[in-house]
């Protein structure tokens, strides 16, 4: 009881005491009040809880909190800057990919990791990343459009 873990979240160092049962999602939502990360299922199959840990998209609902020690974590709260949205967020809005808004944080974080690791990911690779996420609202057309638009925006931003 009472293991302490220290890690970076969205650029700030944080420490929390664990009771032992928590997963990463519980630490983010219940201890740090970072509620942008969503819980949509109970068996790691919907992707709504995806955050980026040391550059890799991870399902926070099955990521043990005890493994957070020393990790760099980025959540949906950490990628926009005040009123300046991240290009992935802008693209999702422009493509009409936002309906109920529940799956979107996980999808944005998946793409954030995808494009950080491979800025020129092919459409197949983007679809492969998106296939780990469930959306009940859109039929996925607008989400794929948003993802490819985001890639273009980010590529233009680097030039």
């Amino acid at each position, binding site marked *: 009881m009472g293991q302490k873990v220290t890690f970076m979240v969205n650029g700030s160092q944080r420490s929390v005491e664990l009771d032992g049962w928590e997963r990463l999602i519980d630490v983010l939502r219940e201890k740090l009040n970072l509620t942008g990360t969503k*819980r949509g299922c109970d068996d790691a199959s919907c992707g709504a809880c995806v955050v980026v840990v040391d550059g890799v998209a991870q399902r926070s609902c099955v990521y043990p909190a005890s493994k957070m020690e020393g990790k760099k974590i980025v959540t949906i709260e950490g990628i926009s800057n005040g009123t300046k*949205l991240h290009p992935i967020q802008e693209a999702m809005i422009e493509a009409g990919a936002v*309906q109920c808004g*529940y799956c979107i944080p996980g999808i*944005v974080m998946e793409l954030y990791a995808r494009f950080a690791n491979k800025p020129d990911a092919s459409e197949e690779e983007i679809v492969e990343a998106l296939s780990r996420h*469930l959306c009940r609202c859109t*039929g*996925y057309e607008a989400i794929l459009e948003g993802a490819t638009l985001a890639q273009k925006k980010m590529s233009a931003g680097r030039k």
Partner: protein
Amino acid sequence: MEFKYVGKNIARPDAAAKVTGRVQFIDDLRLPGLLHAAFLWPPYAHAKILSIDTSEAEKCEGVVKVVTGKDITFRYGENIKDRLPLAVGKVRWIGEPLAAVIAENVYQARQAVKKIKAEYEQLPVYVDARDAMKEGAALIHEESGTFEHLPGMEAVPGTNIAGRYTLKKGDVEKGFREAEVILEGEFNYPFGSCSALEPHGAIAWFHEDSTIEIWSSSICPFIVREDVARVYRLPVSAVRVHIPELGGCFGYKSDVTIEQTVAYIASFVPGRPVKWVATRKEDLLSTLIGHGMRTRIKIGAKKDGTLTALKTTILHSTGASKDTGIHVLIASTHNSTGAYEFPHCQLEGISVYTNTPPVGAYRGYGHQESQFAMERMMDILARKLTMDPFVLREKNYLGPGKTTSLGEKLWESNGNVRKCADTVKDIVFSKPRKVKEDDRYYYGRGFAALMKSPKGASFSSKSCYLKFNADGSVSINMGGAEVGQGLRTVVRQVAAETLKISPEKIAVYTEIDTQFSPWEWQTIGSMFTIQGGRAIIRACEKAIAQMKRTASQVLRVDEDRLVYDGECIYLNHDPSVKVAVSQLARGYTYDDGVTVGEVVHTTADARLPRQSNPDACGQGTMGITYTFGAQGCEIRIEKKTGKVFIDHFVSCFDIGKVINPRQLRGQVTGGAMMAIGATLHEELKFTPDGQAVNPHFSTYRFPTIEDAPKKWTVEFVETPEFIGPYGARGIGEHPVIGVAPSILNAIYDAIGVDFHEIPVTPEKIMQALVGEGKK
């Protein structure tokens, strides 16, 4: 008419807050002293409860209270009061809660639930209406027949038949005598789940001053408020219901369900709020599920394709409560004609209690289940008559002057199914098919026409509260639930168009609170745009009239000589004689401080015009308007696996007027995708003893991006509807209706096999190919 804002891709007002994760869904709310609940679910789908021992659970760390159903003295329900907040005496389905632990955190609550000991005596289980209605079947509700209910929903006491709806139009026997061809078929649309990505949840807080505050991921706050007030004998005004952001609905967050359970357990810990948010398994088994309808259909026709008679019998496995399913069944029954006129109809729906989760609203509300049967039958009948299926349909489409099964005579303004069908036909069928099969695939094309009737209650209304601010900007409050469909954008566009001001100057409500929000019955039936839009226009026009009244004093002219342009009110023949809207918003103040006129804020509402209850023949007026459409697809079936690939899915609806093209496309692709899931993958399965087979997303096969059609085409016909704002009609549910029959018609086209039930999985296709000697 030229439009400035209607018909444009105006941005969603809520998009930035959603894409940053900043909006608050029910599980994101933080309240002082919040307690958490977990429930004990039964191991059996039908059993007497012999004993419940909570003593060990009460001793667990963090536990504040353990509640069982032993002292419950009330039932609830909107249509029929056959629901209990916790099981009393027996359990009737696998997801019926029978005890709750309230603890300081959810982990503690779940740990303590494991310590509750209960003993049961198993009873016979029925998961299908056909078994539950057999003579001598054990009763699921021994008290059935004594529950309080609305008129016309009588159960058959001493049986599991929970209710019947019968519709008679003309003389069905005469219709079959006139027929030269009679065709019968039976089609099954099994259980499914709406499965919004946000699970359903609620918070209830019994305050020290005898008021109750509730938060729920619900689309009917005012119904929840009234029902909770009734149970706890409080004035309706003493119950306050908040609706935070909703992560999808698709039907099952309507009606009163989990709120009564959470309120009941919270009543044991007054002074502290209690939260319960379903896990996915709980969301699938303990809220509401969809469908469970078996449709038997008999059609009579002349040799030239003229339809003469329709007999439909729908058996509905409604689950352990019929409260939320009975209207779905009624809608399914009278809509079983599809988009066709039958002069003689006898349509019957039989609601049967089963030991499965209660069926409730699911996007489409009964339409897709029975029109699946009708649209498959149209193709089969055309084959029997050796007619082109399009010609058969065209001969019988509903339209101006034709009457629906309900006896409603349609007007031109109800929409044009022929135009929708022609659009889909041109896109999918006008080119000759390239190949019928190659080494790897069979190819097929399918079509279905559809009709969506309205569904409401005669008293139902949607209201709008509109407030002009000092600078001429506007704030709007309504009671309509934004579930992702984009109604906030529609509010902005309709109000901007009517008030002639830019959408950015209109702030739209972000949450519903029964203390502040104007009354709305509930946000169902794809009616927000048409009904809510009319309420907005009325509120805007009242505000303009108010400002003209004040301006007539200021400018010293009659009101009917004044013109409003969004910025000013001016004299019709001399625009230089004017007063600014910003000077009128709170009355007009002269230089000496004397102020005249009213503060500009208005309320308005819009009902379902002429909506009536069913008469003795089951007929009546549905109010508002019908919507017609058509869907079609091009598919490939992989020979090796039996997997169906949708290369192109086409939808066309007579929308009346396109308000926001991008949002409409998203509604259509999203709705069609849900129904593609139901057609090819999704089924919520139960074993014969009522156990859930696949109550998680890993096994309940929800479609992913890899299941999406390679190409979507979405088209609209615009036949103006006079009731709707600028001619618009609804769209939310319509895209699910024609999907299953169009795909199954395409499967027949590809491999010559008629399927009568969904989902058509690769395994079923492989079996059929073996049966056809194609494997």
